[in-house]
């Protein structure tokens, strides 16, 4: 147990998240966050981190940014939350500006266009793999699979607007999973 809770300053929080923001090539930010916050800095207990992740995953927005907001708030209030989120996002944004400017400058070059086509093709593979991996359970359950396909067809193929699709599908999906028996009160 941690008897004297850590009280890092905002610059320290910014620095810690900045380090993740610079080094986390290839995604999987939640693992980086856990490593830094729980293992290295001892700013959160494993349980606290898990609770933060639960909130971050339930609410809209990126899981990693949401966890940063919660962790930053725990450590130093509103300013801590801002420091954490900014530290996480700023390095990637700067690198993307550079990549973006290079793209605009060289997009018509034959070699660059071919390499970018390969990069984009590989990125689709990455997204497909992530989807299949985190969706394995849903894709193998007939009822869940129905909602997966319904959402895919409405939003992906028929271009039903996302808020409309959510309001049409989510109530049914949630009610079918409603709490039953003792727990339902």
């Amino acid at each position: 147990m941690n008897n004297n809770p850590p009280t890092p300053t905002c610059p320290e929080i910014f620095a810690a998240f900045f380090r993740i923001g610079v080094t986390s090539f290839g995604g999987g930010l939640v693992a980086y966050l856990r490593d830094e916050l729980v293992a290295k800095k001892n700013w959160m207990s494993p349980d606290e981190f898990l609770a933060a992740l639960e909130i971050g995953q339930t609410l809209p927005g990126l899981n990693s940014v949401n966890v940063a907001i919660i962790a930053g708030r725990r450590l130093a209030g509103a300013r801590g939350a801002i420091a954490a989120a900014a530290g996480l996002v700023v390095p990637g944004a700067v690198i993307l500006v550079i990549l973006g400017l290079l793209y605009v400058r060289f997009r018509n070059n034959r070699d660059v266009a071919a390499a970018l086509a390969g990069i984009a093709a590989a990125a689709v593979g990455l997204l497909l793999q992530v989807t299949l991996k985190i969706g394995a359970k849903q894709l193998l359950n007939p009822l869940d699979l129905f909602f997966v396909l319904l959402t895919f067809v409405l939003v992906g193929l028929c271009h039903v607007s996302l808020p409309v699709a959510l309001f049409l599908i989510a109530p049914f999906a949630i009610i079918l999973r409603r709490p039953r028996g003792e727990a339902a009160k």
Partner: protein
Amino acid sequence: MRELVSLLNVFCLLSLLAVGGGSAVLPQMEHETVTVHQWVSADDFATIYSLGQMAPGPNMTMVGLIGFKAANHAGMSTGWGFAAMLVVLFAFYLPSSFLTYAVSHIWDSFKENPWRDAVQRGMAPITIGLMLAGVHAVGKTASYNPAHSLHFNTITIAVGLAVAGILFARRINPALLILAGGAVGWFALRGI
């Protein structure tokens, strides 16, 4: 100026709709930015998305580049481009962050609520469906593009499937695989 307001409107809404992470709003983002507002071409969207996978940090930070290109498209200067980039980044990250900040205060009061589990289990397949739609939204340009030859499309689909297969088989940094995809593209897609 009107473009900046449109960007603000679109990305704030996307922020609050990103249930289960950023990838869930990819199809809607593609539709809004390519088809509805025509801020970027379908090709640009696929490329910007894939650049986002190569940069460190949250992978959806690439939305900033869409803002930059949108300003560019509207004939604004580079300075306005950076302003548009900041507008989009704030619009995409602030609303969900505010919500998380507020809810994390009161989380304990509904942590034990049985409906929380129902919401999570009910939303999970919807998130997966949205992510599949995201694969389709990017893939229809990057993997199976009717504007390209069959030979070209065979290679891009093969690269994507190879990346997915390798990632299932072993733990390897995806950024390296994406770079490898670039090398394959440069080598195999140049002349066609």
